[in-house]
């Protein structure tokens, strides 16, 4: 905590301000943001928090705070964070089972060709990395996970699909993600998970939270189907 500089705070409107933690995407910045997000959750009059790679948007009740009071309250909350309480210790690891195969990952062969690897090597490299959830957004529960190994860097599809099936595991640039719901999408799809990433009935709602560490575990078609996986959707 002590080695991280205090964020700059800029007013976005009369109900929101943006905390900026530098311009570099890395784990220590991400940890710092996760920690401050946790502490601001308990601040009265904070309506919403949107953490991302290097920033934290704080939406506040403008009946509680004006532009001076909110900055003061945030600075005070940050200053009183207990530096001995490490968030790294509380960091959760989420394991996502994935059925990697052309029938649910139609872009595997394109990715393999582009990366000059075999399809099996693409799969092996994808699941042997531990990722970090740097941001959640785009659609509820969609976690931007980084970083994929250098050999797997591939650009988005030139024409996005209009409908990406639920559970699709995809890569683009140096990131990977799972589509929590049916949406349009331009990432390269290499597999599918049978598990839900979003559940309005659960306590956490979303399986992956910002700051979590995430691993993918390859499963067979039989296991995928046994876990409730669906093969259709394309």
């Amino acid at each position: 905590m002590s080695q991280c500089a205090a964020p700059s705070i800029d007013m976005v409107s009369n109900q929101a301000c943006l905390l900026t933690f530098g311009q570099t995407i890395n784990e220590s910045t991400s940890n710092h943001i996760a920690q401050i997000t946790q502490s601001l959750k308990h601040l009265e009059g904070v309506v919403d928090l949107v953490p991302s790679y290097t920033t934290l948007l704080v939406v506040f009740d403008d009946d509680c705070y004006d532009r001076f009071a909110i900055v003061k309250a945030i600075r005070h909350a940050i200053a009183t964070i207990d530096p001995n309480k490490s968030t790294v210790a509380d960091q959760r690891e989420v394991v996502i089972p994935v059925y990697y195969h052309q029938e649910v990952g139609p872009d595997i062969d394109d990715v393999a060709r582009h990366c000059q690897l075999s399809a099996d090597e693409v799969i092996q490299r994808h699941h042997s990395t531990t990722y970090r959830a740097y941001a959640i957004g785009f659609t509820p529960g969609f976690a931007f996970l980084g970083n994929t190994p250098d050999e797997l860097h591939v650009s988005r599809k030139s024409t996005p699909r209009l409908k990406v099936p639920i559970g699709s595991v995809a890569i683009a640039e140096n990131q990977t993600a799972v589509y929590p719901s049916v949406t349009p999408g331009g990432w390269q799809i290499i597999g599918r998970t049978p598990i839900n990433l979003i559940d309005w009935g659960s306590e956490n709602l979303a399986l992956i939270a910002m700051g979590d560490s995430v691993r993918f575990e390859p499963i067979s078609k039989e296991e995928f189907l046994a876990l409730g996986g669906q093969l259709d959707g394309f």
Partner: protein
Amino acid sequence: MAFKVIKPGLLALLQDLGRHGHQSIGLTTGGPMDEVAFRWANALLDNTPNAAQIEITFGMLSLEAQADTSIAITGADLGATLNGKSIMPWQTYPMRKGDLLAFHQPIWGLRAYLAVKGGFLCEPILGSVATVLREKIGGLTGKGDKLQKGDVLTYPTGLSHQQRSVPRRAIPNYGLKEIAVILGYQYQSFSPLERAHFFSSDYGISSNSDRMGYRLEGNAINSATKGIISEGIAYGAIQIPKDGQPIVLLRDRQTIGGYPKIGCVTRISGSILAQQKPGDVIQFTPITVDQAERERCLHMARLAQWR
């Protein structure tokens, strides 16, 4: 008792002030596009500020009352009639069992708000009944559906009617085309010439505009930065994508994004913007955060004083 939906209209949605506290998992807020009109409708009936209402976009909606109640209509004039007789927005009306309330087509503005005494009764999802079609959440079914023919919208009964109307000077002027913008922290990434363009140009509302965002068509604005690291998007943020045509992000906006932002529309001016139809023309005018605070204080004080 309840209203029965006879004709569902183009887009009629149950809304409250929004679903807050879940943007960290990517869930948008929803809520009324015209918050000023929404707040007045609940104030007219002495409802709690968050009581659920119907946001009626464009019109073509008709409802039959199954029990006596009191309603308030604010926002756009959608040519509403009560048992065939024209009625004006920004006031309350008594409704008797069997009465037919209809909204036809926009005469002034685009979105009307229908509040009922005590508020519509609906099971909230994550603390709100706000309907978000894209995320399939909220509303009568909980699954983000707009109103359908045959839907039954229940409300508390046994509450008395009181004739009230919003003071004339407090009614927003939807003909006012100056939309107030708080200058953004990324303002510096636009050259003085680009800023001048932005504040001196006319922008037409694109037909691609919806509750997520209003797309504008006019002078393209160029940013010195191509993109930024994706960050949280506040209500009203004005994104400048690669083609330079501004997009004002509103109630159903995505939670994060990576385009530079020139500024942010306030909730009060966003309420005026949300009443503009495709093809209407607006201009932007800069204001400071303290001006926005003062404007908001005045609006809330008027509501409080009047209640």
